[in-house]
């Protein structure tokens, strides 16, 4: 029986009522009396020396409040990077200064050069057109391998070269790994590209800065996944505003997918300008601006090699990756190709030796950072493609080859520094096989052939690391932040609760699922629990939402705080019931004395806490409010097996996805409907990456896919009905809910199965195609067949 409330129930998403009826409160809905608007004059050149920015004519234009240029920010800090990677020689990465407005040089198309604050946006744009720019164009650095050549043009003149870092992992394993390749019975090699993507959340970025002269308090309203982190980074490193004088609010946010984690120049600008102009200052990104100013995702070029022994056991894995950083280091950029990628290269397999080399490269392109999955999709794609290729080369069943090499004993310490606590990869593969009717595939292929189409089946596994992350561990790995989470549970006198969580919901449905957890623990109706997030003035210091960490880390903090509430409430109940505390039981929202019919309702206890007439004041304080901070002891490791069936039109190269099945192990599940929705969304993005999305620059650093005319987003009719299962559950062993996280799995797990399926289809027609780089657009598939 499905539950109708609490943990395990598919409660309807309460936040959707306001989202779907147009009464949400997004940042762009916030308009402050007296606000001015800013328009950023952005570089249309990828690389150039700024000789002068002449604002004299523009400043006199109608409505102009003030015009800012790079010179106005010389005394202001650099946009900081939150992660410092140490390279294979023990040296720290090269870290360029990242100005709020370009100074000296422009380094990518879209970089803001000047900012016009005016009464209206149109007036600001008019004035921006009157700014005279004198910029000498320099050769653009676009291709990563060219960027590393001797004598290449430098993106940053004050750095040694364009190499951010050269990372080796695990360096101590390198010699043994190389040796294993010498001894291998078979080596499969694959060169591939993990295509560059633009996140494209439905809501573009917005920032509104406000300043109260009377109290010297700054407020920033922003489309962020983690307002506290923005407060810390912007306050401490850029603008020098102490945290107690800076409030950051991220209200309803319409999708983030990673690109709203980072601290951006526009946020710092609006906060700074609100004080400088003594006016609230608002910026709303246009979609065109978003393409050239939101951090992009992925953009890895990799060579991967897999060594196998004569019995087809994986003996070693070796990779060489070039990872594009873009022109500057976005907040978490250095961590994505390293610690979020290299540590996942074992995948689901017991490969004993792994060596990963990553060269991070500066280019004259938009900064690249985490995008749904962040590092794990890159790892999964390489690994699951090379395993598939190996199976084809060896003439063995790709599923059997995977199964043969599965990790089966847990906990399992990988050779890439992480320990999987639990999992059952055969179970998810069994489940998948039961969903996809593999036996019927031959008949379906024959049917497709009758219609002149090629049919292919692709399977892959994945594992990912979620619930990021143990602070002490990430500290050693270069994180400049802790990655705990916080929650305050405030019980009101009449029994309702407000939970202030440091996690942030930007579409994930926390207001529903978090309430289910607390309501379940107390045994009350979900509607008695309100979830508050996204405001540093209300919520204790939190680290926000990314890396599928909300329930695993934020939810755990909430559970801990609720446990404290329950413990205190039991003390109050024991006093009211004149029984010993140890005998008090909480069930269905009532405290009872074990073995008796004496009980007191939740609401009577909460009332007693705030009207403490009959109350153990000598033992406990009045009130019922508790805070907990939770720092996980390990990552969580969701895993699964995915299958994709495609039809390829051999005349046009067009790929259609006929069937897609996902069997995931997310540990325990709080709201199955929300989990299904998260998987659906992830699959849409993963399939979008595999078939459609292609962020592409020309050799001059001009973005070719700078609008929806050329950047193909997945649409409903590009996708099949998904068959999604999450009944395989090996609960996480180290968080109180036993949950693992489900937000990114779909995007991580789906691209390889799509490409595997297309390769399968083409090979079935005798085509000698072993790989096609994503996106598998019709022209690429057709070209591969010629």
């Amino acid at each position, binding site marked *: 029986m499905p539950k109708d409330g609490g943990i395990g129930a598919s409660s309807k998403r309460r936040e959707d009522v306001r989202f779907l009826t147009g009464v949400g409160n997004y940042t762009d809905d916030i308009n402050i009396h007296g606000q001015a608007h800013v328009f950023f004059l952005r570089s249309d050149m990828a690389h150039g020396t700024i000789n002068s920015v002449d604002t004299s004519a523009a400043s006199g234009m109608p409505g102009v409040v003030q015009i800012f240029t790079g010179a106005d920010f010389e005394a202001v800090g650099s946009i900081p990077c939150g992660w410092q990677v140490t390279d294979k020689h023990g040296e720290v990465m090269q870290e360029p200064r990242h100005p709020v407005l370009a100074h000296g040089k422009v380094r990518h198309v879209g970089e803001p050069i000047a900012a016009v604050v005016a009464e209206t946006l*149109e007036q600001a*744009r008019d004035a921006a*057109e009157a700014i005279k720019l004198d910029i000498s164009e320099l050769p653009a650095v676009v291709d990563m391998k060219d960027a590393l050549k001797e004598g290449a043009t430098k993106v940053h003149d004050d750095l040694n070269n364009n190499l951010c870092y050269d990372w080796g992992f695990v360096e101590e394993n390198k010699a043994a790994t190389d040796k294993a390749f010498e001894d291998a019975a078979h080596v499969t090699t694959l060169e591939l590209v993990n295509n560059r993507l633009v996140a494209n959340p439905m809501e573009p970025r917005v920032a509104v800065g406000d300043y109260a002269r009377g109290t010297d308090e700054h407020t920033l309203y922003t489309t962020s996944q983690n307002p506290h982190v923005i407060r810390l980074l912007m306050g401490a490193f850029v603008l020098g505003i102490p945290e107690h004088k800076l409030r950051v609010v991220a209200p309803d946010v319409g999708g983030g997918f990673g690109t709203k984690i980072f601290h951006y120049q526009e946020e710092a600008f609006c906060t700074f300008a609100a004080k400088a102009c003594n006016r609230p200052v608002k910026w709303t990104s246009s979609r*065109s601006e978003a393409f050239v100013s939101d951090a992009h995702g992925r953009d890895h070029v990799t060579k991967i090699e897999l060594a196998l022994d004569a019995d087809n056991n994986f003996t070693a894995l070796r990779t060489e990756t070039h990872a594009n950083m873009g022109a500057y280091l976005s907040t978490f950029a250095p961590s994505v190709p390293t610690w979020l990628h290299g540590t996942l290269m074992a995948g689901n397999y017991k490969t004993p030796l792994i060596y990963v080399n990553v060269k991070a490269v500066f280019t004259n392109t938009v900064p690249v950072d985490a995008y749904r999955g962040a590092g794990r999709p890159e790892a999964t794609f390489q690994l699951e493609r090379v395993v598939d290729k190996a199976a084809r080369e060896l003439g063995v069943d790709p599923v059997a080859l995977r199964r043969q090499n599965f990790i089966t004993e847990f906990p399992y310490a990988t050779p890439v520094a992480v320990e999987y606590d639990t999992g059952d990869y055969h179970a998810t593969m069994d489940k998948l096989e039961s969903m996809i009717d593999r036996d019927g595939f031959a008949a379906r292929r024959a049917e497709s052939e009758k219609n002149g189409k090629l049919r292919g089946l692709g399977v892959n596994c994945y594992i990912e690391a979620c619930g990021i992350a143990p602070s002490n561990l990430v500290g050693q790995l270069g994180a400049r932040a802790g990655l705990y989470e916080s929650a305050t549970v405030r019980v009101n006198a009449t029994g309702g609760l407000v939970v202030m969580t440091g996690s942030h919901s930007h579409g994930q449905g926390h207001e529903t699922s978090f309430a289910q957890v607390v309501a379940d623990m107390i045994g009350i109706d979900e509607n008695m629990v309100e979830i508050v997030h996204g405001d540093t003035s209300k919520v204790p210091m939190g680290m926000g939402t990314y890396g599928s960490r909300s329930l695993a880390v934020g939810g755990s903090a909430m559970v801990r705080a609720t446990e404290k509430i329950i413990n205190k409430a039991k003390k109050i109940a024991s006093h009211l019931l004149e029984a010993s505390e140890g005998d008090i039981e909480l069930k269905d929202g009532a405290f009872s004395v074990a073995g008796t019919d004496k009980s007191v309702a939740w609401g009577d206890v909460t009332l007693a806490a705030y009207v403490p007439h009959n109350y153990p004041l000598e033992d406990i304080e009045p009130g019922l409010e508790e805070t907990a901070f939770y720092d996980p002891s390990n990552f969580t490791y969701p895993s699964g097996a995915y299958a994709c069936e495609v039809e390829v039109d051999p*005349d*046009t*190269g*067009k790929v259609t996805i006929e069937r897609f099945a996902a069997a995931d192990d997310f540990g325990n599940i709080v709201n199955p409907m929300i989990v299904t929705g998260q998987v659906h969304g992830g699959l849409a993005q993963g399939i979008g990456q595999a*078939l*459609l999305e*292609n962020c*592409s620059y020309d050799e001059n650093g001009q973005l*070719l*896919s700078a609008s*929806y*005319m*050329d*950047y*193909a*987003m997945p649409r409903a009719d590009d996708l099949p009905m998904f068959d999604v299962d999450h009944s395989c559950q090996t609960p996480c062993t180290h968080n109180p809910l036993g949950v693992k996280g489900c937000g990114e799995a779909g995007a991580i797990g789906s691209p390889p199965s799509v490409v595997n399926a297309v390769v399968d289809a083409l090979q079935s027609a005798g085509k000698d195609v072993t790989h096609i780089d994503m996106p598998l*657009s*019709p*022209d690429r598939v*057709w*070209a591969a067949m010629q």
Partner: protein
Amino acid sequence: MYNFEFEKPETVADAVAALGAEDAQALGGGQTLIPTLKQRLASPSTLVSLKNIAEMQGVCKGDDGSICIGGATNHATVAAEAGDYPALAETAAHIGDPAVRNRGTIGGSLANNDPSACYPAAALASGATIVTNSREIAADDYFQGMFTTALEEGEIVTEVRFPVPEKANYQKFVQPASRFALVGVFVAKYSDGVRVAITGASNDGVFRWAEAEAALSANFAPEALDGLSLSGDDMISDLHGTGAYRAHLCGVMTKRAVAAAA
């Protein structure tokens, strides 16, 4: 967007007069022009909306049996009401999305002559007549390369007349992002011969494929096209496909159009 004046005349004559003002521009459904204005890529002094001109609205049948479409008729109306020319109605039904179809107009599409637009292929393959406020222009003379037509400054497309073919079909292979035609082929068979017009492919905009027309006029069957091909040299090469790929698609889509029409 820059500021502009806005006129909403009710007759063609008033519209023509209004377009006489310096830098005045006609506004059809705005599906091309408004995004251009928003990007500040155009700065007309006056926009003259053609929407309220009754004589430019709707689909009717001419005395010679041709389908006549008012120049300000939107795509959704053509899709719904041009049933006497099913291939044309179908073409209109697959332009853009519902919002685009409910605003975008045939006159706007033909005036704009986007190299990837659908109507130019339909008009050229049908040997349509483009009627303006001052003259009638044969489709063969009207399309003059990417975004270029025979229209004079201030001239308005008031009507488009399509002779109805015996058989016809439009095959659109969509560009994955914009869903305009990466290659679109309109084939129309008339009693005096077959016309094949291709959009999306050429650097010179919509064009007729003479060899295919000759072959199909002799034998209106997909096999008639065997061995025929176009060169990719002068074809558009971009993120979504090389010239060679487009040339290949021209052949595939023409065959499919013939198969679907036959």
